[in-house]
């Protein structure tokens, strides 16, 4: 084969590869964008981490299209045939490619094809066409993506108030962390809060997620004191119980000087310690303190617990931060729990039932029905004051006082059926709902009650809403 013919075929091959790539890249991009739409949908459903795959799902189909284009034109014979078919070269290149024997006729053929090829402009005749029609298909995933984004924006706009509330809670937590930034655990917690703030715009339930993040932080920080360590609440309750019999030990416990407290515990009378433990256990309904109180070796065991716990300055910082978190979560540390943005569910680590209580300090505050602010909060806990100093300093046991029915306005109406197909019942139910639900929701949003309880009421009314 003549050199110039070979050169032209090589040039044609490059153009054909480019052409095929352009054509197939439309389909590749279509596949990639469709995958991006799916990934975006998954991300909006809460799995934001899948977005890391976006560059890959776009790049991989394009690479595959390029590989396909090269594979398609791997044979120079195919290129020659395509050039003949597209450029009307009267099968010169494919004949030239196939002729192998050397005769005067083939020599004349080579010469004629070479002269022809020399004057042939591939750039002019084998132009890379823009595959416009194929690219029109890309409009579909782009529209889908646009639709998803619009939906997301609308939803974010709808959640603006809730988002603001959630951001406020986390900002409060971040501020609280900033005051204890010398504590490495709190500094780490501050980073996690910053991450939670960053994730808020993509959240479907920002307030709930914010509270969940805080609850998770509380859990981590509470468990950071050691598996057997006394929680801050237990320590405080014990210090309070010991205030009468051993003021020095109480002061050491309150100041967080656990090493000295351990030494003081060793010197303390076993009976006095058991009594104090019993009182603190009763106060907090703490199983750990109860067990300690019933233990013959309580003095030694408490000493070792205090020795092993981090009762230094760091522990103090963590304790303060934990206390601040609890306040924020219960709506007393800032404005987060007020207004209409208080539809949060509460701590996901709440005790699932009223019997068992977890060992962490946070959980120790949880009433039998669940932690404050949770859906299971029945308002029977020891921490009804929500950290109110006046309440916590009040002496004597706290009692559960049942509310009196009929003190406020009430609506009682007997309906034949709440649902079903009976139109009369449906109408009656709708009417009753429309008069009762707004009043109830107004009441829970104005009253100082745990945010989770607001959500509970809100969800209840959503659940019984009549069908349209």
């Amino acid at each position, binding site marked *: 084969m003549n050199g110039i013919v070979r050169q032209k075929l090589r040039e044609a091959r490059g153009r054909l590869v480019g052409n095929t790539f352009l054509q197939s890249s439309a389909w590749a991009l279509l596949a990639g964008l469709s995958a991006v739409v799916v990934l975006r949908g998954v991300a909006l459903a809460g799995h934001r981490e899948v977005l890391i795959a976006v560059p890959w799902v776009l790049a991989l189909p394009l690479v595959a299209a390029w590989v396909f284009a090269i594979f398609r034109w791997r044979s120079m014979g195919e290129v020659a045939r395509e050039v003949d*078919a597209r450029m*009307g070269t*009267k*099968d*010169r290149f*494919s*004949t030239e490619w*196939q*002729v192998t024997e050397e*005769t*005067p*006729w*083939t*020599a*004349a*053929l080579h*010469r*004629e094809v070479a002269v022809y090829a020399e004057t042939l402009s591939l750039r002019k005749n084998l132009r890379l066409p823009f595959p416009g029609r194929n690219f029109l298909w890309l409009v579909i995933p782009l529209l889908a993506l646009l639709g998803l984004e619009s939906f997301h924006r609308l939803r974010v706009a709808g959640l603006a108030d809730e988002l603001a509330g959630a951001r406020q809670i986390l900002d409060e937590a971040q501020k609280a962390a900033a005051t204890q930034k010398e504590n490495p655990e709190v500094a780490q917690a501050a980073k996690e809060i910053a991450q939670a703030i960053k994730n808020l715009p993509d959240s479907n339930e920002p307030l709930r997620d914010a509270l969940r993040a805080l609850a998770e932080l509380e859990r981590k920080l509470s468990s950071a004191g050691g598996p057997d360590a006394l929680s801050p609440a237990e320590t405080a309750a014990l210090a309070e119980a010991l205030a009468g019999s051993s003021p020095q030990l109480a002061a050491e416990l309150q100041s967080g000087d656990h090493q000295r407290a351990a030494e003081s515990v060793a010197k303390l009378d076993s009976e006095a310690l058991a009594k104090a433990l019993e009182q603190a256990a009763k106060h907090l309904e703490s199983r750990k303190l109860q067990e300690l109180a019933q233990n013959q070796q309580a003095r030694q065991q408490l000493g070792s617990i205090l020795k092993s716990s981090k009762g230094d300055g760091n522990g103090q910082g963590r304790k303060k931060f934990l206390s601040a978190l609890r306040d924020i979560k219960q709506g007393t540390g800032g404005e987060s729990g007020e207004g209409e943005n208080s539809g949060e569910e509460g701590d996901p680590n709440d005790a699932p039932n009223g019997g068992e209580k977890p060992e962490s300090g946070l959980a120790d505050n949880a009433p039998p029905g669940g932690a404050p602010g949770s859906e299971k909060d029945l308002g029977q806990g020891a921490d009804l004051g929500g950290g109110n100093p006046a309440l916590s300093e009040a002496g004597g046991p706290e009692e559960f006082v049942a509310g009196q029915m009929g003190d406020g306005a009430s609506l009682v109406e007997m309906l034949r059926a709440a649902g079903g197909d009976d139109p009369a019942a449906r109408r009656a139910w709708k009417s009753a709902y429309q008069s009762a639900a707004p009043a109830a929701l107004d009441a829970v949003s104005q009253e100082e009650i745990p945010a989770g309880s607001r959500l509970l009421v809100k969800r209840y009314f959503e659940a019984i809403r009549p069908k349209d």
Partner: protein
Amino acid sequence: MSTESVESHAAEFREAFHSLRTAMESFLVGQSEIIHGVLTAFFAEGHALLEGAPGLGKTALVRTLASAAGLDFSRIQFTPDLMPSDIIGTNLIVEDEHGRKRFQFEPGPVFSNILLADEINRATPKTQSALLEAMQERHVTVAGVQHTMKRPFLVLATQNPIEMEGTYPLPEAQLDRFLLKLQVEYPGADDLHEILARTTGDHAPEVGTVKLENLTGLRELVRSVPVVREIEARAVQLVLATHPDRAESVPLAKKYVRYGASPRGAQALILCAKISALLDGRFHVAKDDIDAWVLPALRHRIILNFEGEAEGVTAEAVLKEALAQPR
């Protein structure tokens, strides 16, 4: 033969072809496609069947070719009572100078370079078949004696598609002997004006004679044009597409064709394509060259079945469908 020799021979061929064409076109008006077909058949050593209404210049075309090429020309007007001996000749009893009588072969009009078989479908099949041996074998046998035809020998037969009464359709075997079947179309208005100007005035144009010194060499040159297998495959594909019982056949052929084109059809395609390639200045055959000759080379080799005839399907329709196949 060297490369330069091939190139000079090809140039000589183009020159001869164009000269003949120019000479014929100087006399005939509006028949350039038919002239091209007849000349192609001439250089391919084939025969051509011209089909067209009376008065379209078929006879003039053949006469002009003979005149332009400086070859012998004879004409046979086919009639129902025409006998084979009227075409190929017969043995006559002649008396020599010694008074002895003997048989002497008196050659018929077939012994010429160019034979015009005018209205060939008016003769009986027996007479039509008298041409078979001459057309294919280039010789005739009379009383056991073989008589070789003149070279070149070209039969140009005409037939009238309008008048079917008193005609005998050509047998398939004879139709297959024709390299091309050319359809002479009615001239356009401009051409008609030109015909009138040339034929009704006092000055009739004369046909110039082209000297064909190396006609045999030029014909051999045509046959030596190389065809690669992939290009040849196009001719095979087209021919097989007309066969109803073949997997390669097109739907119309499957439904309406009784017999497809014979191998002579493929030979005709390749030969004509070779001439087209040479005329285009190429030394190889292209698929376009083959496609261009499908209708004239194959249309008379396809026999439609009863359904095809009843539905009015034509061989051209089948061939156009075959041409539409991917190459």
